């Protein structure tokens, strides 16, 4: 069938089952927006900034497991989208981002709103395309979705010059993809799997080290099953919160820089790490030479480059985690005795009793941890929780009772402030039946605050809980610990009237200073079903603890404001 390139883009999105596109029009992408206007098969959400469009597509992808789609124009439209691409890239989130480009004849002439999108996005996309021939467009669209969602997922950019979206060509959307140079390994080497099974059976203190790859592979049920049949304790990374379920007796908690004592001690004392879709990030390992000194390592990951990148691995298994876990469970089910590791579990339980994750509640000021626990009590596993970046993010990861994968959405790898609100909008579009809460800070929320307008216009009732300490809290905490309280440019005492700001944009605002007020505000916001800001005045100097100072050994934690672990 003959049609122009712009229509081809729309037809491809429809063929891929896309329901929602997030974007912002402009000169070079206008042809596509014109075709978009003529169809009613998918919805377009007009964010008020391209960065927010990409984060929204990203939140949609994380909440649903489908490929998120965003659309932007050339030049500044594209450069605004770069932070969104990089955020998705670092956390391996499947996105297809379509950007307009100046006409082919203008490329390279410093044309109006021209920028080398493919050049700029190369290090922050899984792959990217500049379409120079209308004949390539159907294949490129098909390949982009395939590459985004297979193997280690990631964002793919398609940059399309304006004359290509105008040009008419033959459109037949390909049924299948054939990229001879791209064949991800998914099955896993059976000999390595056998060796890994022997290692597990010989181990005395095995530990499941669960990363975001488990969420991406939809392998949570299998991980829970493996842990259960073996009685194997588990720790989760920031990206894996919810995989084991917070009530799971085998779950120690989150490990790493702000991990709890028993998780970090488990990692320091284990004799066998079973790493599943985790990548030994510096925020997890602490000082590498002191990391898990007594452990052999089984590492299952779809990306071979993650294996032995930072820490030598004894049993490398390049595969889709789900496939390997099925094999492991099949073979281990009859052989493993879940009592075998009971001593090890007792050791860890004792660690947890000595130094549980805790905070000191107060009658006079609101503690951020209390707020998060309270949201957990009221909404539990039904809510989707997004966050921005900083103290509030860590407190949420520590204290929210996450019960299922895809419940917790945050920018772990890139650490993007401004991610929480737009990603919550995306998550709510993907899961309209779920309550979506963005737990944010007074610094982060301002980085995409224009999305109040988007959420109001489309009535996307996202509730933003601003844990307001009038500080860039995490940087302030580091300044307190490591820079002798020199609070260089972190005091945010001057700030907008958040309640009025929300109301000015068509939302609801609440100012909260007591527990009772918080309960009332949250209940009211849920009932009113509109976008909301709940501005919560919290203790200004509350710290995120425990803390492993950057570059320190994982077992050397600052446990409370005046106590260090030995």
């Amino acid at each position, binding site marked *: 069938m003959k049609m122009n390139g712009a229509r081809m883009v729309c037809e491809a999105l429809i063929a891929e089952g896309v329901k929602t596109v997030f974007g912002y029009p402009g000169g070079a992408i206008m042809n596509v927006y014109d075709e978009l206007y003529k169809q009613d098969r998918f919805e377009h959400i007009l964010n008020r900034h391209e960065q927010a469009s990409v984060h929204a597509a990203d939140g949609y992808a994380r909440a649903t497991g489908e490929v998120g789609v965003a659309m932007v124009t050339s030049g500044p439209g594209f450069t605004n989208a770069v932070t969104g691409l990089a955020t998705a890239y670092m956390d391996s989130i499947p996105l297809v981002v379509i950007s307009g480009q100046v006409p082919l004849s203008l490329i390279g002439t410093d044309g109006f709103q021209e920028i080398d999108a*493919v*050049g700029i996005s*190369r*290090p922050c996309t*899984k*792959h990217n395309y*500049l379409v120079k021939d209308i004949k390539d467009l159907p294949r490129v669209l098909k390949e982009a979705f395939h*590459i985004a969602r297979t193997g280690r997922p990631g964002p793919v950019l398609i940059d399309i010059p304006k004359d290509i979206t105008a040009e008419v060509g033959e459109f037949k959307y390909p049924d299948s993809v054939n*990229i*001879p*140079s*791209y064949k991800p390994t998914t099955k896993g080497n059976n000999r390595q799997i056998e060796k890994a099974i022997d290692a597990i059976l010989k181990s005395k203190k095995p530990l499941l080290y669960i990363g975001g790859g488990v969420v991406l592979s939809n392998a949570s049920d299998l991980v829970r099953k493996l842990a259960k049949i073996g009685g194997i304790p588990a720790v989760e990374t920031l990206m894996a919160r919810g995989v084991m379920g917070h009530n799971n007796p085998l779950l120690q908690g989150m490990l790493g820089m702000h991990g709890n004592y028993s998780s970090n001690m488990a990692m320091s004392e284990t004799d066998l790490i079973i790493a599943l879709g985790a990548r030994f990030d510096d925020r997890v390992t602490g000082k590498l030479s002191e990391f898990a000194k007594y452990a052999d390592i089984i590492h299952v990951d779809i*990306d*071979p*480059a993650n294996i*032995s*990148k930072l820490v030598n691995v004894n049993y490398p298994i390049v595969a889709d985690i789900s496939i390997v876990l099925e094999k492991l469970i099949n073979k281990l089910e009859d052989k493993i005795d879940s009592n075998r590791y009971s001593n090890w579990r007792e050791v860890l339980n004792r660690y947890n009793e000595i130094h549980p994750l805790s905070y000191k509640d107060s009658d006079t000021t609101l503690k951020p941890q209390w707020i998060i626990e309270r949201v957990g009590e009221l909404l539990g596993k039904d809510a989707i929780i997004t966050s921005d970046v900083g103290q509030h993010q860590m407190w949420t990861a520590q204290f929210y009772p996450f019960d299922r994968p895809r419940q917790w959405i945050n920018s772990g790898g890139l650490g993007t402030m401004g991610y929480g609100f737009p990603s919550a909008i995306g998550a709510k579009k993907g899961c309209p039946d779920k309550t979506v809460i963005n737990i944010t800070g007074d610094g982060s929320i301002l980085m995409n605050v224009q999305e109040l307008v988007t959420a109001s216009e489309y009535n996307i009732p996202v509730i933003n809980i601003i844990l307001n300490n009038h500080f860039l809290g995490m940087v302030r905490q580091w300044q307190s610990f490591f820079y002798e309280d020199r609070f260089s440019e972190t005091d945010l005492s001057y700030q907008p009237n958040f309640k009025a700001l929300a109301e000015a944009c068509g939302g609801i605002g609440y100012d909260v200073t007591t527990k009772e007020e918080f309960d009332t505000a949250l209940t009211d916001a849920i009932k009113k079903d509109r976008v909301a800001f709940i501005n919560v005045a919290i203790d200004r100097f509350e710290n995120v603890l425990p803390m492993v100072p950057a570059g320190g050994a994982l077992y050397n934690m600052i446990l409370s404001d005046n106590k260090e672990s030995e």
Partner: protein
Amino acid sequence: MADVRRVISILVENESSVLSRISGLFAGRGYNIETLTVAPIPNSNHSRMTIVTKGNKRVIEQITKQLHKLIPVYKVVEHDKMVEKEMVLAKFPIDKNLSDIQALCQAYNGGIANVGKDMIIGMVTDEPCRVKHFLEATERYNPIEIVCSGVVAIER
């Protein structure tokens, strides 16, 4: 871990952005490129790149793995048993002894490529370590300009 020299051949799709994908990967991840050569493979839509790099064992392993991840990369060969050659063009002033320079170039699998009004151009093709010796030997003839091609390699 000590640094080692490695020759890596990469078979890629012959498309416009592929060189920047590979050189960008090296730059972005802080890997070394000592030499890089690239040319299309006859009668195919593939190109072959040969990169000489230096790094410890872990870095070299990461380089090959990261290269593999690039979508237009078909094959990455970290050479072990190989024949490697590098070509050098060297320009000398005409007042130097033409036969001396010719003999020198011949000793390194080359000869005189061009003689002009006021200069001689010699050409040699040899293994990288021999090329180094050639370059040392040319010094006494005060070369005006020296151009090295970078290494190409083929597995034995």
